[in-house]
C-alpha cells in the first residue's frame, strides 16, 4: 500500500506547484517600462513619461482573475521635455515629489475577466495613490502572458514575462493637485497609458 502513496503525493505536490501563481518583478533591467501621461493645455498638450517603475504582480495563467499585486512609480522619474514645466511639475505646488516620492496602484479585484490565448483583459479595481491621496479606481487592463520568453529578452535568464497595458483617465482635482486652480491653463483630466513588462525568473 505504501508504494502507491508516494506517486500520488508527488502528483499532488506537482499539481500544487503548477497551480501556484508566479511572481513577476516589474523592475525592468532593459529600461523600456514606461507610463505616458498627457493633459491638455492651451498652447500644446503637456506630454511626458515616467520610467521609474517597480512592483510585483502575482499572476496565475490558469486563474488570471486571482491576480494581485502593486505597481509603484517613482514621482521623481516623471519627465517632460520642457525644463521649466518639469520643475513646476515636481514642485510643491503640483506633485511635490519630495514629500510624495511614490505613485502606486494596488490591485484589489478583477471583474469581466476574459482570456483568449495568452491575452487576458479585465476591469481591475484597486487603490490608486497620488500626491498623498488614495482613491479606489477601476481601470481596463490587458495582460499578456509570454511563457518562456524571458531568455529571449534577457540572455542567461529563464522564465516568463507578463506585459501589462492600460489606458485610463484620472482627475487631478481628486488628488488635491491644484484643486480648482489653473483650469483654463492645464486640464484637470490626465490621461495615463501604461506599457510595462514584468519577469518571473525560474
Amino acid at each position, binding site marked *: 500500500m505504501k508504494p502507491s502513496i508516494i506517486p500520488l503525493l508527488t502528483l499532488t505536490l506537482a499539481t500544487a506547484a503548477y497551480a501556484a501563481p508566479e511572481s513577476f518583478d516589474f523592475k525592468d533591467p532593459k529600461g523600456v517600462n514606461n507610463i505616458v501621461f498627457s493633459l491638455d493645455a492651451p498652447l500644446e498638450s503637456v506630454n511626458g513619461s515616467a520610467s521609474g517603475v517597480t512592483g510585483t504582480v502575482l499572476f496565475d495563467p490558469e486563474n488570471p482573475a486571482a491576480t494581485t499585486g502593486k505597481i509603484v512609480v517613482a514621482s521623481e522619474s516623471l*519627465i517632460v521635455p520642457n525644463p521649466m514645466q518639469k520643475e513646476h511639475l515636481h514642485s510643491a505646488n503640483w506633485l511635490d515629489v519630495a514629500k510624495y516620492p511614490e505613485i502606486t496602484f494596488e490591485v484589489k479585484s478583477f471583474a469581466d475577466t476574459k482570456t483568449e490565448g495568452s491575452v487576458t483583459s479585465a476591469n481591475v479595481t484597486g487603490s490608486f495613490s497620488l500626491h498623498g491621496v488614495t482613491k479606489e479606481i477601476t481601470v481596463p487592463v490587458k495582460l499578456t502572458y509570454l511563457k518562456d520568453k524571458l531568455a529571449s529578452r534577457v540572455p542567461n535568464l529563464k522564465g516568463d514575462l507578463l506585459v501589462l497595458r492600460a489606458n485610463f483617465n484620472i482627475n487631478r482635482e481628486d488628488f488635491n493637485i491644484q484643486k480648482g486652480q489653473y483650469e483654463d491653463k492645464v486640464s484637470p483630466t490626465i490621461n495615463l497609458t501604461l*506599457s510595462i*513588462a514584468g519577469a518571473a525568473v525560474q
Partner: protein
Amino acid sequence: MKRMLQLLALLVVLATAITWLVTGANRGWTKTSRPVKTLDEVTGIEGITYQPAFLPGVDFLGASLLAAGLLAGSSLFFRTPRQQPLTKSQFPNQ
C-alpha cells in the same frame, strides 16, 4: 551707433527666425530634450528615452523679438550724424 543697433536688431531677428525654422518650427514651448521611442521586440513595448536637443518654441521667438525690439528702440536715443555744410574754404577751386 544708431545704425549699428539697428543692424544688430535685424541680425537678432534673422538669427532667431533661421534657428526656429531649421529646428522644426516648434509652435509649442521651448524644449531641451527630445523623446526617442525604441521598440522592445519581445514584449512589443515602445520604450521612451530622452536625448538632449534644443527645440526653440514660441517663447524663444517672443523673447528674441522683444530683444530685437529693444535694440531697435534704443537706437532712437541716438541722433543720426548730420552732414556739416561745406564751408567756403572747402569748395574746390573754381
